[in-house]
């Protein structure tokens, strides 16, 4: 199997899989993940080593594109209109989940008499959501309406909350474990956020300044990919959040000039194959054997994460007087979990020698579940409020 052939099969099988699973009303994201599992190393082993080594590259690129596109939803006039609600909902949905999952696990750890600090980190990971899967479901079913608008904004900014919580959680957990409170961890977390916002804002300005040189539609794509890659590459090089910097760049670009929406449109016409490959590779990486190790902790995590999201969003919506459909259904649509949570798991793995690996395993195992079920729940919520035209 050479790499070109493997790439061809990934694309074509992804297409066929999505088409077939449409008959049982599964969203494409789920279909891609399932195809990925099938052709991954555990079963058919069609994905070559070379493609596997490029997975990281690919997922960073795709997350950069997603986050950049999400930035488009933050036009200033819209922010002025509904930002208070978005802030409340995203904050409480994230914070509530953190607190709830941490509390549940804390109680469990106390009962079974193991160290309790992993509970705090696991809770922080639970607050993360998955912009890519969410966006793809919305796009596939051409969902539009109030819930869709809120959802796009909430998944975009709750990653910022999640990063703050993760930094706090790791600092607290470290304090409990080693009995020294390292304020530097919190600063590092804040630095990661502000650094990302600054980079994204600077590149967004440069983007908007230089785009006067872009003349033909063929150049659009080259230009936009160049900048997204530059932004992602820089963010990785100086260790700030790729998602936030890309989102910030998108936000700045759309606000600096109205006609910049063309760039977002252009991106949408070509990004489909990238998403497909991204999710198929994500599926190929899913490790099912890890599910056996999940245990009760994993189950508690899953249950309380969903409760946290549903009720967190509900409370946030109530406080900020958001419309009823948002109050009732936004939380459920936030259930997908993916890379951001895994990222926290990776940090934990390197920070806590004794329990880091355990934390990572729980996050990875629950991610397997949420990756597969999350998109279905997002689709379900959007259908319930009537923002997806009937697919029948």
């Amino acid at each position, binding site marked *: 199997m050479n790499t070109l052939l493997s*790439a*061809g099969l990934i694309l*074509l099988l992804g297409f066929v899989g999505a088409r077939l699973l449409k008959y049982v009303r599964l969203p494409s994201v789920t279909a891609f993940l399932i195809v990925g599992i099938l052709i991954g190393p555990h079963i058919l082993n069609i994905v070559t080593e070379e493609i596997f080594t490029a997975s990281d590259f690919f997922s960073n690129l795709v997350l950069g594109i997603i986050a950049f596109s999400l930035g488009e939803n933050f036009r200033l006039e819209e922010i002025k209109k509904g930002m208070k609600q978005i802030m409340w909902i995203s904050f409480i949905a994230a914070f509530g989940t953190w607190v709830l999952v941490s509390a549940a696990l804390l109680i469990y750890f106390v009962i079974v008499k193991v160290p309790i600090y992993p509970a705090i980190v696991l809770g922080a990971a639970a607050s993360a959501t998955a912009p890519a899967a969410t966006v793809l479901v919305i796009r596939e079913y051409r969902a539009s309406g109030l819930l869709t608008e809120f959802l796009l904004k909430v998944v975009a900014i709750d990653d910022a909350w999640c990063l703050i919580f993760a930094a706090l959680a790791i600092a607290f957990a470290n304090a409990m474990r080693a009995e020294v409170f390292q304020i530097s961890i919190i600063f590092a977390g804040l630095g990661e956020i502000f650094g990302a916002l600054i980079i994204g804002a600077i590149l967004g300005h440069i983007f908007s300044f230089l785009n006067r040189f872009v003349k033909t539609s063929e150049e659009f794509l080259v230009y936009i990919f160049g900048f997204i890659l530059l932004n992602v590459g*820089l963010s*990785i090089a100086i260790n700030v959040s790729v998602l936030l910097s890309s989102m910030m760049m998108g936000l700045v670009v759309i606000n600096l000039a109205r006609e910049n929406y063309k760039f977002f449109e252009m991106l949408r*016409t070509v990004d*489909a194959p990238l998403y497909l490959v991204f999710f198929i590779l994500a599926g190929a990486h899913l490790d099912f054997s890890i599910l056996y190790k999940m245990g009760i902790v994993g189950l508690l995590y899953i249950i309380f994460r969903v409760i946290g999201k549903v009720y967190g969003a509900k409370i946030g919506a109530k406080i900020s007087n958001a419309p009823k459909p948002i109050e009732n259904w936004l939380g459920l649509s936030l259930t997908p979990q993916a890379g951001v949570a895994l990222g926290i798991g990776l940090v934990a793995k390197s920070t806590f020698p004794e329990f880091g690996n355990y934390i990572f395993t729980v996050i990875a195992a629950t991610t397997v579940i949420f990756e597969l079920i999350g998109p279905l729940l997002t689709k379900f919520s959007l259908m319930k409020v009537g923002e997806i035209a009937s697919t029948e």
Partner: protein
Amino acid sequence: MHQLNSIFGLAVIIITGYFGAKLLRKIHFPAVTAYLLIGILIGPRLLNLVPLKIINFSDFISNFVLGVIAFSLGANFTLKDMKAAGKPVIWISVLEASFAWIIVTIVMVIYFLLNGMAIHPSFVLGAAAAATAPAATVMVIREYRARGIVTDMLLRVVAIDDAWCLIFSALAITFATAIGSGSFNSLVIIRSLIEILASLLFGGILGFGFHYFSRFVKTKEELLIVTVGFIFLVVGLSIKLHLSPLLTSMVSGVVIANVSKDSTLFFEILREVDPILFLCFFILVGANLEIGLIPEIGIIGLLYIVFRVIGKFVGVKIGAWKSHADAKIGKYLAWGLVPQAGVALGVALSAKALYPEYGGMIFTTITATTVIYELVGPLCAKYGLQKAGEI
């Protein structure tokens, strides 16, 4: 040296390529040439800004991009067009390829005889001279939105002369072996004929398969996924089966252009995404160019460069005259055939493997002249099309 992360590396490629091409446009350089120069500049020999991980993907990208180009070239061979243009295309391509072959070979034989060297490398060098570079030519045509009879004919000629080049190189290798060892091994010729026929057949089958399969495609997003996936599949399978990816991709493009009612959709969607692929492709070609070989070009290289071009011009002239093509074609088309790239290098690689003693010399000559042709070729193509009034 500290390596950039690959994403950053790719960003450097795209951004320097983009702005570099804009800058060099001011002095009327085609984008291809600009990309190659930038590739040389940021490549491992000079600034070393391209991470190794990306360089390692060069083969993958170049095979895919050549597949995209060959597939797109297939669109120029609809039956309707070929009724009118079939004869000149065949005549011109056969003659320009064989004249380049014969003239370069004769000159080399004479030179080698005068210097008391073995003459058989000259056949292989001549065969490599028959090849052209579809990618560079297509890029120039696209960039300047050239259109007209010369452009149309050029697109067809660069598409099929690779087939001739494959036949010639098989013949040349057979001759060279026969002269070198005194035994005539017709196996090489038969094998390459099989390679060509099998490529045509296989490309045809895949083209029909794709045509059938494509009825399931509904949205534009799916169209892109399926088209790109298909080209990967064709190229990947061709490599696996030791067929010519250029020919298989082209034939599947021809089949689709002829049997599918909405064939233009496939070619159009590719055109939307390929500028970025071309950019990466040519920058990587530049980064991989062995510019260090230029001083080693020697007299052999110079003769090769001069007589290859002469062969192309004479061949086109005679071919156009024989087939009663428009005078403009006879006059200007050959300029577009000056670029030389991967196909010639492929011939050089097989020569290197076959003749341990002379293979190195053949390979160096072809690689070094390719550097020159890659850089000068697009300028020539642009010049010719301008003269013909099609830019």
